[in-house]
């Protein structure tokens, strides 16, 4: 179903994932019936409440926390906004630390808070592999630091941050740690207890649930002011009628992750490495971004020297779906802030594409995509040579 017909070979699982058919099946009864409001006391309401409770417990089991530590949100971005603004508001401001490679849903929030004069902000850099240095983070802590927010895994290059170590060292100093785990959940084991973090964001559509749902783990006892106020939904932490359908989807997706992750990680690594070796064979000087070992098993961010990533992807058009390592804004190509922070040369960054495999990727697709990409790269080079 996933790549039938004219659909491209989909290697963009870090952008979004298809809804797993099992997730869709779990959601279907709530799409066509059982439409009660979980806050209603009548039969349909109670049915809805039970389904919501079940979904929440599935999310909690996946993360290794208690259901009442899970706040359902409309997505990963809302979870990040709620975590950061919520902690800052509860503490009445202070000093916040984040990394230079955070997702915009973290970076824009801390920058806005700094602009609003509510916090002082320290942004710590990363090494050539995109990793923060725990000593540098700890060295940036101040007596008035209220929050450190460092992502668990980077969306562009897949580098996994030393979050467990950071959490332990922050906790010694009584500082809360939030991690954006949007890219990690479903790809690597994420257990909040083992990580020792205080707040963690989840995005449904990165783990085969639909777009429009996410979750925020808030360790019991951590004070967070709500971002969205109103009636007492989510134990007063997030107002708005719960999206039962979305919650059921997220719950089912989390249950699948919990059951299948161990095998999946290995399979993804195999596919990703196969893709890398196929490309390496055809592109001299190919450079892989991200940490050699501490990296998501599915993510391959590669510079294809001589290629222009945007044009390459445009030509691949409807055959291979992947993302460039740079963003096009109003016809100006902008090197990604992640690659910049890693010190990647602009020319290399502009030749970078991100390939991310996932649950429905097959070996055949990987081989096919590699072939298509190599053909285009060869064509680009020939073209460039001709122009000269």
């Amino acid at each position: 179903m996933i790549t039938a017909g004219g659909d491209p070979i989909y290697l963009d699982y870090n952008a979004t994932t298809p809804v797993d058919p099992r997730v869709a099946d779990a959601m279907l009864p709530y799409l066509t019936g059982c439409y009660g409001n979980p806050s209603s006391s009548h039969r349909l309401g109670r049915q809805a409440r039970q389904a919501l409770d079940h979904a929440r417990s599935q999310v909690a089991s996946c993360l290794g926390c208690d259901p009442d530590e899970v706040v359902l949100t409309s997505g990963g971005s809302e979870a990040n906004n709620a975590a950061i603004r919520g902690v800052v508001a509860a503490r009445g401001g202070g000093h916040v630390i984040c990394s230079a490679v955070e997702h915009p849903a973290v970076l824009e929030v801390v920058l806005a808070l700094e602009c609003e004069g509510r916090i002082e902000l320290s942004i710590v850099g990363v090494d050539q592999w995109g990793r923060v240095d725990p000593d540098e983070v700890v060295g940036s802590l101040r007596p008035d630091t209220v929050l450190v927010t460092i992502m668990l895994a980077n969306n562009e290059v897949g580098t996994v941050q030393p979050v467990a170590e950071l959490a332990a060292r922050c906790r010694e100093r009584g500082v809360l740690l939030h991690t954006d785990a949007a890219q990690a959940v479903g790809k690597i084991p994420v257990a909040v207890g083992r990580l020792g973090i205080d707040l963690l964001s989840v995005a449904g559509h990165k783990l085969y649930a639909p777009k429009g749902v996410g979750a925020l783990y808030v360790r019991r006892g951590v004070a967070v002011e709500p971002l969205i106020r109103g009636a007492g939904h989510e134990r007063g932490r997030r107002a708005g009628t719960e999206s039962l359908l979305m919650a059921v989807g997220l719950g089912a997706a989390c249950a699948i992750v919990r059951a299948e992750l161990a095998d999946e990680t290995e399979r993804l690594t195999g596919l990703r490495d196969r893709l890398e070796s196929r490309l390496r064979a055809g592109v001299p000087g190919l450079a892989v971004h991200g940490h050699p070992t501490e990296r998501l098993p599915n993510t391959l961010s590669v510079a294809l020297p001589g290629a222009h990533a945007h044009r390459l992807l445009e030509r691949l058009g409807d055959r291979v779906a992947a993302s460039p390592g740079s963003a096009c804004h109003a016809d100006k190509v902008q090197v990604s802030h992640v690659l910049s922070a890693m010190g990647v040369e602009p020319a290399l960054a502009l030749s970078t594409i991100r390939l991310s495999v996932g649950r429905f990727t097959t070996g055949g697709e990987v081989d096919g995509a590699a072939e298509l990409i190599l053909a285009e790269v060869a064509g680009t080079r020939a073209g460039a040579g001709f122009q000269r």
Partner: protein
Amino acid sequence: MDVIYLDNNATTRVAPEVVDTMMPFLTSDYFNPSSMYDAASGPAAAIKQARRTIARLLGKVRPDEVLFTSCATESNNTAIFGTVAANSERRHVITSAVEHPAVYNVAKELERRGLEVDFLPVDRSGRLDMADFVRALRPDTLLVSVMHANNETGVLFPVEEMARIAKETDPGIIVHSDATQTVGKLPIDLSGTSRHLDLLSFSGHKLHAPKGIGALFMRRGTRCRPLLLGGHQEDGRRGGTENVAFIVGLARAMELMAERRDADEPRIQAMRDRLERELVARIPFLQVNGAGAPRLGNTLNVACHFIEGEGILYQLSSHGICASSGSACTSGSLEPSHVLRAMKIPFTAIHGSVRFSLSHYSTDAEVDRVIEIFPSIVANLRRLSPYWDAAANRPRPEAMSMMDSAAAPHS
């Protein structure tokens, strides 16, 4: 047992046509609308089309004035916190005492943050006094936020008129309305009668789209900061990957509501009127909350003196009838609703309120069933009530004297 669902102001069933429209985006068309490859143009185009449809149905406003959110609560939070953050030179806000908690509690939070908020009172029918409103307007008034129709009683507020007065007094005043209960049910013309409104919130799940999608109309030029940051989506006014399926579902649901409105509204109102008439005729000491005020045609809120709403709902539920006491969002709490308190519903009735709210899917047979069952439920509960003289089958004299005493004001 079949369920008779008369709680459509709490939430509605998803229309089958809406399900059909959404399905491709929950299965094959899963691409991120922000991606650059061809396949992603499907979801991106679907969002664009949905935005256009909704803009047209709100009275031919500009598509970029429609902002998608996760629910009306988020829309309300965005509208209120956003305008307050973007207009720091003004510190006064006017709202009503009967707003949904998604506005009421946000306004309370503004008070805690040092703004001045006027909560306009309502009379016993739930109506605002326009003179109160005009008197409340001040040179430093930043925002007027008044709901279009009350979720509990269905009472309609003259928001168009209030917006006009506010703008004529001072064009700098921003006017917001929570229209969650009216969009779909009533025509809204933001280029015509409602042209003075700057912001309008609504939600999908009150109009047969799913829970988890809402929208905020934001007139061009309105100074309002985003609530959710972190992406270029919605022109930078709301970060987060778009919920493509539900956005498409919202547009389809609004189309259906508009197509069916001319046929549905008179039919639904006739059913509601018949229910109201029959219950009033059959049950002594029953009052209609909001009677005498212009009201939504689908809503009937009755107060049964001397008994408790929760007991009534429990009995109704055992007959498969879904209704509510006050609003779903505050149910489970034994506190009487702030709306009924503001209306000074008598002490003997404030706990005995039941709301029936009808929809396109409601039938005459369902209404008949309620007319048949409801009076006996009330009679049975009254026999157990300490305020009721079971032998004489009438209220005790001391209870009668309490009937006129209004509920204590909301603390």
